[in-house]
């Protein structure tokens, strides 16, 4: 991937990437993840929201061998290495789709402020909490 042009030193904004679409059927999930990875170099306050069909992006057990496409779900597990540690998943969206937190990838990060303790990046939140989180953002990127 190309070298990001890291400009605007000193400015920290709250960026939220809102994921509302399933993977593979369209390219949006994959190319959104590419934005997240590049964006990580900018030292902003980043979070990811998964709601509606976006929750399908992070279900475990994805196997794309039969469709000739790259399985990019392991990349979500690497987000902690990019200091992207806040993944909010909407409870209602999971339930509507017959899913629970147990169906999701195990995504963790090592907390440098807590002796590198391994902590979960995924937080299942109710819709009204998701609404509040959205309201706190400076920039919302939806794809």
């Amino acid at each position: 991937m190309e070298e990001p042009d890291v400009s605007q030193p000193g400015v920290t904004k709250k960026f939220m990437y809102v994921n509302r679409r399933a993977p593979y059927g369209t390219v949006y999930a994959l190319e959104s993840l590419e934005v997240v990875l590049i964006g990580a170099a900018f030292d902003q306050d980043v979070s990811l929201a998964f709601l509606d069909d976006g929750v399908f992006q992070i279900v475990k057990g994805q196997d794309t061998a039969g469709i000739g496409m790259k399985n990019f779900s392991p990349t979500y597990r690497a987000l902690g290495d990019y200091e992207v540690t806040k993944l909010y998943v909407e409870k209602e969206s999971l339930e509507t789709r017959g899913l629970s937190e147990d169906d999701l990838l195990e995504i963790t990060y090592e907390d440098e402020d807590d002796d590198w303790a391994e902590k979960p990046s995924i937080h299942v939140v109710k819709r009204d909490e998701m609404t509040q989180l959205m309201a706190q953002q400076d920039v919302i990127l939806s794809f």
Partner: protein
Amino acid sequence: MLHTINKSPFETSTFASCLGHAAAGDAVLLIEDGVYAAIADTEPGKQIKAKNGTVSFYVLGPDVAARGLTNGSLAEGIQVVDYAGFVDLVAEHEVAQAWL
């Protein structure tokens, strides 16, 4: 926050999802096929009427006209804006969130 919706509520759940995440004081602007949600006496039209006041509803006039709808056929309380009004709405709200 300004929410924009560009999908027909009769085709996708985008409208419903957006309304489920619109907080009091937010604005919702319907553009492109999103304007179909504004038709009065439909289920989405009734939801707009019911939620109007808590949330402000707007519809992009050029998209309404293009689709053969008239301003008179729209849900009560929804305000019609042109592209300049769209620009004003984005400027007036700190964040714009596109529901695609």
